[in-house]
């Protein structure tokens, strides 16, 4: 199947970006240097093209009920312009995807917009339609992924950058709040959300205006490489890597995102997750820091100090901020306390590591 391309794919190529396949999309992984891009976001501001993220709009009389029953968080808590992080789980409480759900403005055509991960938009579109039919609900569901581009402007100077580019001030938005703002004459949905641990905004905009809005920001362009090192430093989950519905199924409690599960609401997987919560989990998602020299990578074995395999590294990198090798993965709960010594098999060599609480950057959240 041909790779899907973000609207500015050719622009990024001319700018000298290198590309990678991600979730079926041909995305820029690096514009200049991952380290340089990473540092721009930690110290000033950078812009990411994240147009590979999906967009599904849900409207109609039963839109709220449908969203409530297909996501783990409580959408009734959302006023127009609010958003929340949520999981989409199956009947067994296993995470199919994670998402951000927005309740749109009252004058909008749709009531909700949610953002599935790259390559999951069609699956989620089908899932919403299937349950709408099963529950005989009156809701319209539209896969708008190809209609929108999405950019993330992130970093301590992100608010200044977005304010400068927009006609309206976005500085008063709280975390997870969103509003429409005009950027270079283009109506954008601007949300104070992100995936880097920094202050920042995500802009959702018509894909045919992609160039106009991109050009309104004069800051470091950043690729998926820096996005990965930034989110790993924060211990944030990456779909398909830190959980994978097919290859590494995990429930929200194992994945340390139990805060997104509202058991006082009705949703697919609720009963299973209530049981998980009562019984506790056997394995849990942890961060660790390598004490010995080396770089942990996705797929490496985690072992006990007695060399028994106890888990797998789901994400790992040399942290550009800390200049230390860090990783994420699942271990039995007995090994999950910060300070516990574990070992990681790095290309056949056993390296000492220590469990560390996340985020690795303690002053961020």
């Amino acid at each position, binding site marked *: 199947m041909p790779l899907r391309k973000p609207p500015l794919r050719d622009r990024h190529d001319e700018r*000298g970006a290198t590309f990678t396949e991600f979730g079926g999309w041909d995305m820029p*992984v*690096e514009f200049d*240097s*991952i*380290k340089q891009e990473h540092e721009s976001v930690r110290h000033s501001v950078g812009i990411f093209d994240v147009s590979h993220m999906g967009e599904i709009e849900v409207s109609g009389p039963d839109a709220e009920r449908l969203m409530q029953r297909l996501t783990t968080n409580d959408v009734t808590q959302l006023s127009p312009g609010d958003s929340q992080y949520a999981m989409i789980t199956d009947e067994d409480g296993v995470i199919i995807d994670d998402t951000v759900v927005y309740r749109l403005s009252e004058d909008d055509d749709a009531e909700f917009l949610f953002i599935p991960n790259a390559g999951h938009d069609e699956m989620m579109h089908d899932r919403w339609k299937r349950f709408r039919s099963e529950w005989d609900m009156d809701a319209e569901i539209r896969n708008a992924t190809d209609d929108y581009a999405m950019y993330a402007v992130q970093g301590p100077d992100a608010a200044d950058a977005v304010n400068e580019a927009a006609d309206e001030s976005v500085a008063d938005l709280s975390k997870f709040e969103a509003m429409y703002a005009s950027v270079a004459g283009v109506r954008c949905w601007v949300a104070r959300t992100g995936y880097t641990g920094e202050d920042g905004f995500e802009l959702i905009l018509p894909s045919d205006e992609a160039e106009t809005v991109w050009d309104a920001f004069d800051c470091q362009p950043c690729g998926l*490489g820096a996005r990965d*090192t930034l989110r790993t430093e924060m211990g944030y989950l990456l779909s398909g890597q830190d959980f994978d519905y097919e290859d590494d199924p995990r429930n929200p409690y194992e994945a340390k995102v139990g805060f997104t599960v509202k058991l006082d609401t009705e949703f697919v997987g609720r009963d299973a997750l209530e049981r998980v919560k009562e019984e506790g989990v056997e394995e849990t998602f942890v961060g660790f820091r390598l004490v010995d*020299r*080396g*770089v942990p*990578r996705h797929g490496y074995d985690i072992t006990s100090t007695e060399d028994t395999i106890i888990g797998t590294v789901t994400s790992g*990198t*040399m942290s*550009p901020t800390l200049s230390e*090798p860090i990783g994420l993965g699942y271990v039995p709960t007995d090994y999950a306390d910060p300070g516990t010594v574990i070992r990681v098999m790095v*290309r056949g060599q056993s390296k000492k590591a220590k469990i560390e609480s996340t985020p690795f950057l303690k002053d961020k959240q």
Partner: protein
Amino acid sequence: MSFEVPEDRNYLESHEWVAVNDGTGKIGITDFAQDELGDVVFVELPSEGDELEQEGNLGVVESIKAVSDLYSPVSGTVTAVNDELENTPELVNDDPFGDGWMLEVELDDESELDDLLSADEYREQIE
């Protein structure tokens, strides 16, 4: 993008270079290789006295995004290791043909250089 390919050394297809002087070869990776790898964060090398075989494993270079095996352009005995790379692996990015060198090797057989690519041949390969 054009990459530096100095004339005064020989190259392996896997992007290592060797510059030989008086029977001793200095080894590193090319400008093209460091650019492909991106930010180098870790280099694992053999120790002084270790024996290397031509095209045998020389160690590993890790960047933020990838891990890559290194191969030796020549056979010989390691006589020096660039210790600077332990704390400043980014020298490989900044100066791959200079301060980012990795090893010095006393060559077993200088005729092995005939098996390697000239600067022109290597340039052709990466273009």
